[in-house]
């Protein structure tokens, strides 16, 4: 009588089931209808409008995230102050918030009768259901991914290099530009890629705060939802497009990292608090 080794066998079975479960929906997107039909649907006006809205809003949001997130992360990474870990926790909070909460929060802050609503109206600004609202929603949900990764990357820069730069006559600003930024750039790029991917897929907060108007606020994920009941093949085509874009981003991230000096891509890399 031969006894089959049970343990390795059950590992294999579990792996096959997991793999099939994760891959099957992706395979289904590309095989549900003929591939040529799928590609044809990409020429549809709804798809083109959504692609333009998505690319435009995500890029603007990304620029804002880099512009404000980088100095924020540098300050938090390089200063010791009271409430530092509280600040980091607050920055990370949007990561774990349900998107619907983000949507209602943005509404309560920037809506017509929101906290800043009357102030904005003075300047003739009405944000809800505009493209600006899409940008705000994307920036709100995606920025924590960038900032926490940026904090970890700046913290990983050897303090003695920063000190050396100062003793060699460089101001804090020059030290940031020539030492801290170049040494952290790998980690910053990884954080930016993660934020970009998250922003591109943003759905819940956007649909609540910006609505889903074709050519204005309807991003690719919103278009999938809109076409889902009427033209399933259009929804499938957009889904396929997003799968390809996400896969490219992920590959770019993996290729980029090995030759940069900085930290991991781990989504949940904790911002280490420095001990003296």
């Amino acid at each position: 009588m031969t006894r089959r080794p049970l343990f390795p066998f059950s590992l294999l079975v579990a792996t096959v089931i997991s793999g099939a479960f994760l891959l099957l929906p992706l395979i289904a997107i590309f095989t549900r209808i003929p591939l040529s039909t799928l590609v044809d649907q990409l020429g549809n006006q709804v798809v083109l409008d959504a692609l333009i809205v998505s690319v435009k809003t995500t890029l603007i949001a990304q620029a804002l995230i880099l512009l404000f997130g980088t100095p924020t992360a540098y300050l938090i990474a390089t200063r010791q102050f009271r409430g530092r870990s509280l600040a980091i926790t607050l920055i990370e909070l949007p990561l774990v918030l349900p998107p619907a909460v983000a949507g209602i929060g943005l509404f309560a802050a920037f809506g017509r009768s929101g906290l800043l609503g009357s102030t904005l109206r003075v300047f003739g600004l009405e944000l809800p259901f505009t493209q600006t609202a899409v940008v705000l929603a994307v920036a709100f949900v995606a920025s924590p991914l960038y900032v926490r990764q940026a904090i970890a990357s700046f913290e990983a820069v050897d303090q003695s290099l920063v000190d050396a730069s100062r003793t060699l006559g460089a101001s804090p600003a020059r030290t940031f530009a020539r030492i801290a930024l170049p040494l952290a750039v790998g980690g910053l790029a990884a954080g930016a890629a993660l934020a970009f991917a998250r922003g591109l897929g943003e759905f819940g907060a956007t649909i609540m705060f910006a609505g889903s108007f074709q050519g204005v606020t309807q991003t690719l994920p919103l278009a999938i939802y809109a076409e889902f009941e009427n033209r399933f093949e259009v929804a499938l085509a957009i889904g396929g497009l997003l799968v390809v874009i996400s896969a490219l981003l992920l590959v770019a991230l993996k290729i980029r990292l090995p030759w940069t000096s900085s930290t991991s891509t781990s989504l949940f890399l904790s911002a280490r608090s420095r001990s003296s």
Partner: protein
Amino acid sequence: MDILNIDITVPLRSFALELALPLGTETVALVGPSGAGKSTVLRAIAGLARPSRGAITHAGETWFSSERGINLAPEDRSVGLVFQEYALFPHMSVRRNIAYGGTNRVDELLERLHLGALADARPGQLSGGERQRVALARALARDPRVLLLDEPLTALDAHTKASVRAELRELLREIQLPTLLVTHDFEDAAVLAQQVGVIVDGSLVQIDTPAALVAAPANPFVASLTGANLVEGNARAHGDLTEVILDEGTTVYSTDSGTGRVGIVIYPWEITVSAGKPDDSSLNHVTGTITSLVTIDNRVRVQVGPLTAETSLGSAERLRLKEGGQVVASFKATATRLLPLLQPPR
């Protein structure tokens, strides 16, 4: 003369370090156990750590004054600091590292520190000794008024340390800058510096020439720290051994190899003192007058010519040692360590 005047109190984890020291155009080493706050002194001078009290002035310019509320930023002090692990910028070539602080002297410094062939290399490709030379060149490129060296030899392996130390000694003699270095190794301090200060429990207990510290330690800690005799001479091969003619004329032999200018290290307890040439296996005999006798516990430190010997209290009494008496200090060739030194500047 441009003098750096330091009079500061630096708060450390469990105590405060107090230091008052003028620094002229010479190399001063601060020696003390690890964790004595020696590096913090350098960081305070460079502006990277804030003293709790005191003043740092250089040639009439105040860099720090607790009384007047002055604390210049590091970039506004003319200081070249060489970090313990060298802190070279890993994303820049050797040339760009050196040019970071100042671009005028880059080629000259590459040449002078024998880095020409490595100008385009990244720090990650360099050996420990090469990294140290880059760190020195980078610090000097800024034309600093003061050079600070933090444990300059600690990051090196024992194999390369001796030659790097000799090169560093040569360089420090050449550049004629006020230099403050900290180290936990008295031997390194004795080779590199003209004046050595010993820091114990947060204060400077003694500062003097290396020879004077060995000969007349102010307290037992200094005595145990300094340990060895260090005399200089010229070496050449002599059969299996190395023959060294000491500067005061005596010839001694060592089993270590070496040629040219060398430092000779002999531990006091390896030296026996007797009235005449002893009839034993010792090859080296230095005849001289006893210039000092210091009793430490049950031992007696005897200064004979350039050497300090230690004997037990009993034998000192038996030999009736007294200051001014003529004795012979004997030690074995195997107990005679040689440290390579480069030619002194002419």
